[in-house]
């Protein structure tokens, strides 16, 4: 069973100056210097102060952990030579998009022409998790159901309460910045793969898109890879968060596949209900109160996530991911909360957004559990 649920991870990191924590555009040099070590596992993004790490297709969560640890330590060593380090968070607390140069690549130039200020202001950093699926039909059937848990996944990862030097009052401001894009957010359900493909072809024929890559929904069938891609999450605080989110995404796909093969499915919600819960999470993160629209009941997001963890429990041993899901159970009870909560706590203690930035640098490094030989003191 586990051979079917392969994993691929894409992480968007912020490159920052090791001393000041300022966002530093440096991708062109990083790509050049990293080419031989990383091959195609390192990529540019729209803005030059981002670096994207892309794993191999991994057979299970243990392989993901190894791959990420390896890639992260290679990246940190490379950046250190450049006087830089990375931050893992959905936004940079201080940066203004007005100052950030974009990558001089044809694809991004075209995107900027098409999306104007909407894409220029996307100084945000997300985590994308790919889970392999057996067929296109199943991809659609599962995607329809998985949408229900978009808010839950966001809540776990929420890590962007600051924007342009201000505390926004929201736990995931990245999600707000993202909203103006076309073809994004929570999708409608589709009756079949045929229906979905017909939608994509209509857009292609109408000249709206070249292919499914410009469909930027929170969950989408990947146009080329036969995966379901989860794109909702902020870059979370630590590698353990990233791995746990990947494990949960995988477990959900595995459990729904198991149900599908027995002629069962969970209830599919219309977009506007899911969006209600998603908004609550943008605002309150794990502290949100959400609605179970089937049972017509209110419940806390922590309780709701607890229910999801119970729901996937019986596939964990096959997948070998019980440890990662336990990490999430601990997170639910942890009073220091998610990345967003911890950023806010630092801000409340110090009154300083600069202090939050320094905290993020430190947390990212600690979260990568660097070998003491590799760790450097960041002042």
């Amino acid at each position, binding site marked *: 069973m586990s051979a079917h649920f392969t994993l691929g991870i894409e992480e968007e990191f912020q490159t920052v100056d090791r001393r000041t924590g300022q966002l530093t555009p440096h991708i062109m040099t990083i790509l050049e210097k990293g080419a031989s070590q990383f091959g195609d596992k390192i990529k540019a993004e729209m803005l030059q102060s981002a670096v994207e790490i892309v794993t191999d297709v991994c057979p299970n969560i243990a392989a993901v952990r190894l791959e990420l640890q390896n890639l992260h330590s290679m990246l940190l060593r490379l950046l250190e030579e450049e006087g830089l380090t990375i931050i893992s968070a959905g936004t940079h607390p201080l940066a203004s998009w007005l100052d950030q140069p974009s990558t001089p690549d044809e694809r991004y130039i075209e995107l900027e022409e098409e999306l*104007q*200020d*909407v894409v220029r202001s996307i100084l945000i950093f997300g985590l994308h998790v790919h889970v392999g699926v057996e067929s296109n039909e199943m991809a659609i059937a599962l995607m329809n159901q998985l949408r229900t848990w978009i808010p839950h996944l966001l809540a776990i990862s929420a890590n962007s309460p600051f*924007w342009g030097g*201000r*505390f*926004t*009052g*929201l736990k995931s*401001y990245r999600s*707000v910045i993202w*909203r*103006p894009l*076309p*073809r994004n957010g929570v*999708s*409608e359900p589709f009756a079949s793969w045929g229906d979905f493909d017909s*939608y994509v072809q*209509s*857009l292609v*024929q*109408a*000249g*709206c898109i070249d292919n499914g890559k410009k469909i930027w929904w929170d969950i989408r069938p990947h146009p080329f890879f036969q995966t379901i891609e989860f794109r909702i999450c902020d870059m979370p605080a630590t590698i353990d968060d990233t791995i746990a989110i990947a494990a949960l995404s995988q477990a959900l796909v595995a459990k729904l596949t198991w149900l599908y093969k027995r002629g069962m499915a969970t209830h599919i919600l*219309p*977009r*506007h*209900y899911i*969006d*209600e819960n998603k*908004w609550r999470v943008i*605002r309150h993160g794990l502290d949100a109160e959400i*609605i179970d*629209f089937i049972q*017509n009941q*209110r419940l806390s997001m922590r309780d709701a996530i607890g229910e999801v963890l119970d729901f996937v429990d019986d596939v964990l041993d096959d997948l070998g991911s019980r440890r990662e899901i336990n990490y999430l159970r601990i997170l639910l009870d942890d009073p220091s909360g998610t990345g967003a909560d911890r950023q806010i706590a630092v801000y409340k203690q110090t009154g300083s957004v600069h202090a939050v930035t320094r905290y993020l640098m430190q947390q990212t490094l600690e979260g990568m559990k660097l070998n003491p030989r590799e760790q450097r003191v960041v002042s």
Partner: protein
Amino acid sequence: MSAAYTIGIEEEFQMVDRRTGQLSPCIHTILEKGRPLFGEKIKPEIQRIIVELVSDIFAEMSVARVETRDVRAMLARLLEEEGLALVSAGTHPCASWKEEMGAGCERYAELAEEFRDLRRSTLFFGLHIHIGGVKDQEIAIALMNQARTWLPHLLALSANSPFWAGRFTGFKSYRSVAWKSFPRSGVPDLFPSWKDFDSYVQTLIKTGRIDNGKSIWWDIRPHPFLKTIEFRVFDMPATIEDTLAIAALCQALVAKLAWLYKRNMRTHVLARHFIEENKWRAMRDGLDAEVVDFAQERRLSMRESTGELLDFVDDVLDDLGSRHEIDYLRMLLDDPKGTGADRQIAVYQQTGSVEAVIEFLVQQTIEGLSLNVSLS
């Protein structure tokens, strides 16, 4: 037939200082001085820099024309006495949001708590058109489902917000972009029946998400209390002629769709994600957009597609008495100066000055009215 489809107009005007052109949070003064003249026709909005004009319910366009012109002129004169000027536009070209713009209004406190920093993005100003007369709620939902197809076209005609915080954003209607950050906004999904729609509203109310249907901010909605179909997609457009023409088009569209409905006919109903494609193009390119007819699988210019819409409603215009307004729209489609957004951009390109754009907006707002106001 003409008495069947009434028109109500709600306009969110910006109040700017006549010397500086900056937004001025003066609503309390204006309300105080304006009450004897305007009664219930002027209202505060969530931001204190807005004065909202709420019209009477008009049986037909000729009445609407006379009243709205008179009332706007009166309001402009009142503002002038206070050293202010009225601006009709979807955004203010260079304003940044300040706390005092909102403070002091009860509803503002709730908005602030719910949206926190997002409230700093609410410096936008819209035109809402109510069309009354569709008594049956089932019919209202059916008409709304169909009318959604033309939300992009309606937006394009009104587009008047290319500047935001001093930047040219690359959009003709940046107000529409800013609205996307908010929940329950934009193009609504399809509702198979009134029951489905009402069930959605009741669920949100029962679960404490909203107090009532007023917090559903879609581009088109059944008004929760007034029993109207409310079109909310529009930027505050350039001139009063634009406002009146837009109102006439909403009325004609509802009338034509209702006429078809009574004969068991309807237009093609589109899924939201297709309408959003066209709306995106309208937001960015306004009347210069290329749109997609997803029903017939063809691409055409927004101007051509809007021309088809005007043709579509043509046979109800004489009964409604609104041919004059629709002819204005045909002229607008051919006018090289374009919409409010195009004209703002042209002024900026000529002068390089945001102040010049604001001055231009002040002039446009009172164009054709019998008074002369300018920034000193």
